[in-house]
């Protein structure tokens, strides 16, 4: 997949809806993500966030409307080529239990027939990028901690250097300390790599830390779509409800720099 031009969004939802068995899981979504931007989809369970992600890599096709990746409708893309250009990270990694860490990370490069030396170099590089000791390469996922598994999941998604990354509650299953570490490292990584990122979470603090823009969803609809600084200032009732739900916590957990000026 070639890099998108600066003006064309990497991902675009054009009045996309998705219905299953008569239920509308997603309704009339209008949303776009530019290359280099991190969009956080914030919302409760059932808000349609995961459905939205699955429309991007064509695990689902929209019932009405279009979803475009790099200017082309997902329905027009070859599903295999589309998916190999999108890194996908889910909770607890979704790693193959019967593959070593190295084989898990090398998955897409292998099926893309990269030469062996390039694959090996890439795996080494990625382990370093996600902060894992290279000796873990020959271990199996069941021998790793949750945090380590998640890092492998991120490394695997990055392996073929896709221009788009989608993450579904990727840090949700981690303990608070590991989670905080992962968030900060991910943000640093994203600032270096400038991929088009959609990050799904139900945690406002995580959203405020990672996002350039936040899209709040509820019951299959997009409620607000704002740059992160404006989001926290918004008076929209649902936004307020979110902020209040998280405000029972000490102030340090709401990163100040995200509440005030542009970053």
């Amino acid at each position, binding site marked *: 997949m070639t890099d998108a031009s600066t003006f064309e969004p990497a991902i675009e939802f054009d009045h996309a809806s998705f219905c299953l068995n008569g239920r509308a899981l997603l309704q009339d979504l209008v949303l776009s993500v530019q290359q280099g931007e991190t969009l956080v989809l914030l919302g409760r369970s059932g808000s349609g966030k995961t459905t939205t992600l699955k429309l991007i890599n064509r695990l689902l096709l929209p019932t009405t409307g279009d979803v475009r990746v790099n200017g082309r409708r997902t329905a027009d893309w070859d599903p295999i080529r589309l998916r190999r250009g999108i890194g996908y990270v889910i909770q607890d990694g979704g790693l193959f239990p019967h593959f070593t860490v190295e084989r898990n990370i090398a*998955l897409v490069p292998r099926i893309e027939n990269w030469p062996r030396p390039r694959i090996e170099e890439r795996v080494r590089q990625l382990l370093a990028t996600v902060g894992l000791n290279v000796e873990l390469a020959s271990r199996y996922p*069941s*021998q790793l901690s949750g945090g380590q598994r998640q890092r492998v999941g991120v490394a695997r998604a990055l392996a073929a250097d896709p221009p788009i990354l989608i993450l579904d509650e990727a840090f949700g299953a981690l303990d608070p300390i590991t989670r905080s570490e992962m968030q900060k490292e991910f943000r640093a990584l994203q600032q270096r790599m400038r991929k088009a990122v959609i990050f799904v979470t139900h945690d406002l603090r995580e959203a405020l830390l990672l996002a350039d823009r936040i899209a709040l969803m509820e019951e299959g609809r997009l409620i607000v779509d704002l740059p992160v600084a404006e989001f926290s200032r918004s008076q929209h009732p649902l936004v307020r409800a979110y902020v209040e739900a998280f405000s029972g916590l000490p102030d340090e957990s709401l990163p100040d720099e995200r509440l005030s000026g542009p970053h």
Partner: protein
Amino acid sequence: MNFLQFMMANRQQVLDLTLEHITLAGVATVLAALVGIPLGILITRIPQLSKPVLGGANIIQTIPSLALFGFLLPAPWIGERGSRLAILALALYALLPLIRNTYAGIRSVDPAVVEAGRAMGLTDRQLLFQVELPLASGVIVAGLRIAAVLAIGLATIAAAIGAGGLGEFIFRGLAMVNNQVILAGAVPAALLALFADFVIGRLERRLGSLRSKSQFEQEINI
């Protein structure tokens, strides 16, 4: 004399019959696997077929074995040689465990893992061979084990239609009312079955542990 002495005295025949028995059961099991495993994979892809296929294999199993041999006798090419008929009948019986275990094994693979694989751009073929089959292999081999033991046991009846095997001794012993002869057939057959169960069982355990190799298992290198 006891049956061990009988076996020693007739050891060439014991050997021949044992070899025949292994051939009957072995070829039947392999045939059943060659048909059953792909069928099992097919019905995971086309769910509407699962009921008829599993149902069909089930019905075959309910037919009394001797009757199945009898039904197949008039068939043109098959009915001519006892061994061909026996192998076909045994293979038909061995189908159900193989189809069923392949189906169940693949369906029991964690759907999140399969979805992650699909999301990364694995083709259906790659998903099947690199993810689903390896993870289902423990259960599939369990089906193979059941099929093999079944085939070895049922092959004793093959002698009734002249297909040979250790059943020869059993039937002859029954006709002669001679326990030693019966045992000379029954004991080796039982030992064969136990052996197959043990060997394939070890393979099954090895493959099953691939699903989630624990640190301990890794270290003692099972």
